[in-house]
């Protein structure tokens, strides 16, 4: 009986339900209900059209412009092949400086924002009234516009009237006063600190959501086994919030690269070299009527973000698998 059934099933599938390449009947016929209409595929059309118009077309255009010396307004242009990319790779200190600043900014923001957000989340994960109030307080900067944040911090950092130097002066620590954004060696780190203040609360919320998903029983079992608080964090919390950590780090990375308005607000337009990041550099090239070159910079920028995000995901997975 069993043999008969086993033989029958493949025969039936081969004659009627087996997916066939190129034919109208296939897997879908097996999986869709009897009321399924294929015209439902048209529902994807609006989203697809928007995707093509706002992503595929600009991306294709950027690649095509990147191979030209178009100035953005002339009726003519020359195809320059890969010259723009060669210049970016070998003869553009401004782009190199912006890349270096972007990476410093990214590193500081990813490390400190993730760390602060995680610490705040652990401290405020319980749903007490005080925690909810503090969560709202830490989340508050996120709802402000980046331009407002930049202007507020620009005055916090002002060396003459700013809050930090005034406070240092009031407590007799004049020696620690700084030019902040005016100090070429430090400026990008002060900008990164502003970004951390701006978005740590937002990342805290993601971590809290992750922490609240962890079953209580795991901690109880760990306590029964005599695990310390650190051991509980390392062997229960950290692996269990892996998805939240991956989201936070990927989001923070992309956010860091897109900190355009914050940098323009803090450093002016164009920002001075110490504050110039990739997005402001590309904007500068567009403003300088070098659309072809700016498009090439944009393509390189896209590649850098893609590679870094991919690398980061791999590292996070590996670290958490080992943890």
């Amino acid at each position, binding site marked *: 009986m069993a043999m008969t059934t086993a033989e029958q099933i493949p025969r039936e599938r081969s004659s009627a339900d087996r997916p066939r390449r190129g034919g109208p009947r296939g897997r879908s016929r097996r999986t869709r*209900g009897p009321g399924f209409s294929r015209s439902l595929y048209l529902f994807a059309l609006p989203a697809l059209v928007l995707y093509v118009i706002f992503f595929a077309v600009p991306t294709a255009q950027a690649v095509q412009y990147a191979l030209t010396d178009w100035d953005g307004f002339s009726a003519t242009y020359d195809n320059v092949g890969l010259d723009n990319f060669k210049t970016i790779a070998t003869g553009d200190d401004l782009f190199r400086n912006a890349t270096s600043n972007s990476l410093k900014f990214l590193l500081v923001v990813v490390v400190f924002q993730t760390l602060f957000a995680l610490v705040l989340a652990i401290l405020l994960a319980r749903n007490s009234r005080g925690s909810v109030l503090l969560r709202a307080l830490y989340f508050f900067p996120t709802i402000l516009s980046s331009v407002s944040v930049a202007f507020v911090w620009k005055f916090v950092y002002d060396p003459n009237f700013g809050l930090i130097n005034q406070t240092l002066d009031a407590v007799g620590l004049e020696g620690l006063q700084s030019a902040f954004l005016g100090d070429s060696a430090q400026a990008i780190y002060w900008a990164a600190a502003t970004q951390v203040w701006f978005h740590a609360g937002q990342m805290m919320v993601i971590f809290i959501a992750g922490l609240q998903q962890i079953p209580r029983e795991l901690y109880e079992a760990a306590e029964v086994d005599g695990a310390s608080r650190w051991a509980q964090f390392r062997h229960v919390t950290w692996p269990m919030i892996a998805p939240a950590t991956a989201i936070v780090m990927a989001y923070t990375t992309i956010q860091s690269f897109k900190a355009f308005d914050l940098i323009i607000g803090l450093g002016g337009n164009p920002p001075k070299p110490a504050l110039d990041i990739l997005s402001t550099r590309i904007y500068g090239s567009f403003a300088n009527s070098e659309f072809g070159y700016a498009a090439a910079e944009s393509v390189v920028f896209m590649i850098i973000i893609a590679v870094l995000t991919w690398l980061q995901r791999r590292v996070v997975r590996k670290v958490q698998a080992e943890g």
Partner: protein
Amino acid sequence: MSNTHPGMNRRRALQLFGVAGLGTVAAACAGPGSTASGGGSKVEGGDIGGELSFAHWRAEDKAVLDKIIKDFLAANKGVSIRQDISPSTDYQATALQRVKDAAIGDVFTALRGPQFSDMVKAGLFADLTNESVVDNYIPELIADGKGGGKQLGLPYQLVFLIPLANRDLLDKHGFSELPLSWDGFLDMCDKLKSKGITPMAFPGADAGNAGQLINGMVMNNAPSDDMFTKIESGEYKATDDWYLKTLEQYAQLRPYVQPNAAGTAHEPAQQIFASEQAALLTTGSYDAASVRALDADFAMDVFTPITVAKNEMKYEGCHNTTFILGVNTATDNQATALAFVEHLSDPEVAGTYANGTAQHVTIDGVEYDDRDLKAIEPWLSKNTLLAPRYQFTDLDIAAAVENAAIEVIGGTSPEQAAEEAQRIVDQRRK
């Protein structure tokens, strides 16, 4: 077979989407730059009426311009005018693209320098050469509105891009006669500093405003008046003696600016000057109205360090003609746009603008009754150079050369700053 649709299945839908997507992407790859240039064509006639956009960067002038626009609308029924205002640096970056498509700027303005030359190349300016409105202007002050032998734009503002001076403070400390040599200037700074006064408020964190000081610093040092054009062309270098000397003089100014000057933004620098903590504000006459808005009540003048000995001085200061008015070739309402430019160019209206905004204008026969304009009026007849920093047509080269000076104020050595600037210039020229 009730679940099959005769005209559409998944494969066909994907094929359709794929083909459409590829087609769109291929269309996107059509060559850029399809804009036909209508630059330099005469202003088209027509009826006065309809909506106009006036694009500019002077947010601080909005109230005065609103009043001027109101008068124009009263005399021209059926017209409405919207001011599209962006901060000057944003305007520098984005105006060309927006004006080109006539998204804004039926009447538009341009900054002298790279923006004006790019807008001329893009064919945005209608030809005003034979329009009667040109006769309202002082001819030598609108030369920078020409392109290809035609009067394309009308520079409207005349500003002095040299430091603002607190006349009362300087008089009080014995400097009724301002020094006309470098040694005399340093001596004045030294004496002011010894009396607890910051000689100069320098907005080092704001590149656009910090860069103004360079006009006066190079005007007598450079071997020719087109020094920055020649740096850009490669004939001069940022490492040449004259520019190195300029940077060394910047280094000598370090003790005479406020502490941490490289981190000071524009508004705090204005505040330091307005509160009489500093004798000079190293920006330009365009800041006079903002300083007054901070409740400053002292007499103001403009004055720049003379970087050479008195007998070697060629120029006493620098001026600039900017806010270049143009009629957009892309607008279909050129007649109304021209009528509005004519209104702005009327001496009485221009006087309202000048006195309301504390800016001199390039229009003949304007009477200045504003306290600061009257104080600065003698500079209209002094020997001043057209501001050199607007000779640059490449923004990155301009930034590199100007930033070298700001970096020196912040502590970088003149030699290092000059070499770094020249490296950028060399890379940009390739």
